Each structure stands twice: as C-alpha cells, then as structure tokens.
C-alpha cells in the first residue's frame, strides 16, 4: 500500500537546527531531534515551550525560518503542505479533540481510511467489504463499537479523543503525532489510552506530547524535554526528572 515500505529508514523523523520566529518571539530555537522507526517517544515541556509549533512545522502547517525537517531520511517536509504530508504517512491528533461533529463515528473513520483522496474518486466512492472490516476493526480497537452510529458531536470528551486516535490509525501512518491525548480523561480512560498507544508503537512510530506525568510514566518510553523551543534534556523519565535544569525550568529557581 505504501510506496516506500521496502526501504527501512534510519530515522522516521529527523529535525536539525530548526528555528521559527513570530514577531521577534522565538517559538522554536535551533531544535534538533530524531525519532526511529517503531519508536514511542514522549515530549514534555512547560507552556510556550514550542510543542505545538513543532507539530505545526512537521505537519506542514508552518514553514520553519531555517533548519531541516526530513521524513524517512529522504523527504523534505518543508517542501510539502498538510495534505501531502498526511498522505505520506504522518498523522496528527490535535490538542483539542477535533472530530467531524455532524458525521457519525463510522463516517469519521471512513473519511480517514487510507486511499485515494481525489475529488472525483470521492464522488463515486463505494466501500468494499475489506474496508468495512477494517473500519469495524478500528472501531473495536478504540472501544467505540457501541457508538458506531453516533454523531461525533454527541461523544464525550474522552471518546472524541479515542475516535481521533482511531482516525489516525485508519490513515495507516508511519508516524503518529499525538498532542495531549489524556487531557480531560478519567484515570481509567488515561490508562486505556496509554495501553492503546503502546500497542500502536512498534508497528508505527508515535510521538506523544503530554503534561500528565502519570500518563508518561504509564507509557514507559524515552522522554524529550522542550524548553523555549529547544531540547533541554533527553532520557528516561527518571533521568530527566533528576536533571537539574529540568527541575529549575519546572519548579522555578
């Protein structure tokens, strides 16, 4: 299905020396970091650390002032727009859950299903049995089997988050960028989400931006700390929590 499945890249995502300035404010400052295929990576950082801007740059919403952004070692992401990048295999979940509120859960997932995105293809599109099976499988996986025909707008906050993750899965991306998936979830839901993401990682690369330390702990993966648009520390959760600089940034002097 994917064009480049044969080539196994060294890095799924490669950022080097990326900077982005808004009116003199450096949202991203000489940011470099990489994600390996199949890796699960958590990114933490205080407000304004540049997490969302970084995601905007990776997904083509913003162009960096300087720096390289490469996908699968070869594709220069700064030369493509959102739709292109999504179709290459980078899926993104927003901080605020955004599902299509006036479509059903099923229809939401149908739209996200990987395949031709052309206008005329869409006009005459019919789902085949395989695609049906695929959608239903994802619905079960994100635990929305009973809500299959509910409108997206009628779901609870946590269910919207899951639906959005389900949509990401249906895109069959190589890299998932997940912005605060646990926000507004109950403890139980948070646990399930962590489990789900861990499952997904391995077959795909997942980058999770999160504030909730419990959630990060549950993910049990390498952590990157961003501060003022720059990587402050990298390592396991225990390592970064012991890092002097990180403590200073989070707790103040």
């Amino acid at each position: 299905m994917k064009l480049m499945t044969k080539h196994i890249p060294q890095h799924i995502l490669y950022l080097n020396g990326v900077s982005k300035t808004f009116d003199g404010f450096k949202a991203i400052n000489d940011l470099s970091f990489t994600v390996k295929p199949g890796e699960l990576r958590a990114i933490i950082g205080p407000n304004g650390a540049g997490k969302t801007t970084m995601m905007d740059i990776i997904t083509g919403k913003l162009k960096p002032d300087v720096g390289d952004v490469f996908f699968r070692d070869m594709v220069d992401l700064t030369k493509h727009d959102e739709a292109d990048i999504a179709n290459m295999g980078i899926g993104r979940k927003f901080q605020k859950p955004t599902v299509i509120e006036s479509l059903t859960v099923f229809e939401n997932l149908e739209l996200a299903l990987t395949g031709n995105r052309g206008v005329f293809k869409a006009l005459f599109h019919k789902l085949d049995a395989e695609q049906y099976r695929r959608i239903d499988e994802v619905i079960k996986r994100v635990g929305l089997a009973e809500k299959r025909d509910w409108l997206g707008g009628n779901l609870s906050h946590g269910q919207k988050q899951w639906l959005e993750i389900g949509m990401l899965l249906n895109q069959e991306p190589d890299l998932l960028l997940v912005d605060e998936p646990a926000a507004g979830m109950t403890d139980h839901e948070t646990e399930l989400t962590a489990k789900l993401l861990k499952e997904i990682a391995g077959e795909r690369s997942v980058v999770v931006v999160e504030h909730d330390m419990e959630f990060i702990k549950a993910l049990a993966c390498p952590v990157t700390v961003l501060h003022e648009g720059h990587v402050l520390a990298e390592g396991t959760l225990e390592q970064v929590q012991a890092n002097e600089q990180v403590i200073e940034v989070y707790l103040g002097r």
Partner: protein
Amino acid sequence: MTSQSRLAWLMNDVAGRRLMALILAVIIILPVLNLWVPKDSFFHVSSYTIGLLGKYLCYALLALAVDLIWGYCGILSLGHGAFFALGGYAMGMYMMRQIGDRGVYGNPLLPDFMVFLNWQELPWYWYGFDNFFFAMVMVALAPGILAFVFGWLAFRSRVTGVYLSIITQAMTYALMLAFFRNDMGFGGNNGLTDFKDLLGFSLQKDTTKVALFVCSGVALILGYLLCRYVVSSKLGRVLVSIRDAESRTRFIGYRVEHYKLFVFVLSAMLAGVAGALYVPQVGIINPGEFSPINSIEIIIWVAVGGRGFLYGAIIGAVLVNYGKTFFTGAFPEIWLFMLGGLFVVSTLFLPQGVVGIVQQWKDKRAEKKALQAGASGEVAS
C-alpha cells in the same frame, strides 16, 4: 446510516422525495389547468400564475446551488447572484441574436443597442451565440469559468469565512459596475431585452410560457437529484468535514481547496442554469441582477428554509419569494421591514430554518412515542 444499496442516497431522503413528487405534480397539473381548462372555469390557472411560479422554480434552483456550498461546505458566497446573472446574460445573448432583423433598426447582425452606439461589427464574444447549443453550453460554462478562476485563487490562498464572503461580494459589485458600462457590449444600463422568441417559439405564447415553466421544474428536480447525490457521496462527507473542521480534514490528507473548488464551480453552474431559465420568463436581464443585495437575498431564502437541507433551500426560496410578491403588492412599505426582520429572526431563533423546526418537532414526538412504547432504541439521524 450507511446503507449499501445503489440508490441509498435517494431512498434515505424521504422528505426530498416527497417534495420532488410535489414539484412533479405541479409541473404536470398546472400546465393542463392553464392550457386546456377554459378561462372562466374555477380550475383555470392564469398565465400570470404560471409565470410567477416559473420564477420561483428558478429561484429555488438558485437557492439549491447556494445551499450546496453554504449548507454543506460552509462557503458563504455573497456573489452567487453574479453566476445567476451570467447564465442569464448567456441566454439573453442567444435571444438577442434570435431577434435578427426584427429589431427597431432592422440590422440583421447587430442587436439594437449596438446599432444605437454606432458599432460597426459584432464583438468577438458575441460570436456563436446565434447557435442554441453553444449558448446553452455557455450558460453553464461562463459562470463555471468565473467560479473556477475566482475559487482557484481564493481557496488556494486559504481565504475563508467572512473574508471570502466579502470578496465574493466585491466580485459581484465589480461585475455590476462593469456591466453598467455601455462599452462592455452587454447593453449597459438597460441590459438585454425585447426578446422575441426562443428556438423559434414566440415568448408571447402561453404554450411557450408553460414549456419554460415545465423546463424550470425539470431543471430543479434534476438539480436536486444531482445535489443530493453529491452530498450523499463520500465527497459530500468530505465537504461536511471541511465545513466542521477544515484543518482536521487537511491533516487527514484531503486537499481541501480541490474539494471546495469542485463544489463551488458546480454550484456556480447550477446558478447559471437557473439564470438562463429565469431570463426568458421575465423577458429582461440587466446589470441590476449583479447587485450585492440580490446575492444576499438568496442567502436568506436558504436560511429561512433550512441551511444544510437541500429541500429546505427550495422551500425557503418559494416561501420568501411568495412573501415578497404578496407584501410588495399589498403593503410595499412593510416588505423591507419584514425582509430585514427575517434576517434577524432566522439567524437568532431559527438556526436551521423552517425545516429544522419541523424536524425538531418530529424528533420530540418520536421521542415521546418511544418513551410511551417503552422502547429504548436510539434516535439515529
């Protein structure tokens, strides 16, 4: 519900089917009552009524076109009157050429207004309009091309929301100014008028009027089916997702600008067809049709009927225009107050229009029934 039957898109639309059946009945029965029932009979329908209803049908098609982009894709065009007028002008140009040497000045080639302006030859863009089929192609193509160029520029640079609304309004305003100019070659102030016949049938004859009425009805039904098919397809769902969450749609990998462009051009073409059917029924097309207020009025038809329900747009167009005919006749002072009030009331209190109210009322009743029966089924929409 996603049923997999080939005709699911039509079968699921009960209200729409009923409305189409009604329109079909109207365009079959009224011509009979007009042509073959004696004038003094109680059942006779006057040609005036036929003409009026024919106009409403054209408006309904126009409203349909606007609902397609506004209701389903969230594009609020304040310039759809321009596409309507362009279609009308294309039709008018054909009918001007049909006049031939029967004009006041008797020039076989040039329309009267060109002779009056001392023009020696036909401008190049008038060539071909003596051919009916060419003219009919242009009816859809001229608005289509304008919509394509305009939409391509606008959607590619991601002009959205009110900004788009404002520049569409500016577009129709600019076109209005342009068409008012005599040297544009479209009859300036007076526009195109004094039409004689269409495909050889005199426009004065009742049979021609009835035929135009029936054509308008047929065009409306076909237009409705087309729109219904589009919004029921996956493309329709992409449009809805663009309307509800544009950037989400982009991040799923859809090229939003292509979808918008497609539906914008389609809508403009439908508007053009509506204009082309409208002009022979009213006998004139002038630059006033481009005026921004006309375009905004279309929006209110859709809003009153029910945005996002294709049949709602049709109902709204007929309702509001009936109201306009009635009140401008009976209480001309009040009409603008009413129209203005409609804008305010429908946006404040009727976000889904008349159709929405009926829907809500039905849902409530269904809920009550369900409760009474003790059944716990979910209400699917």
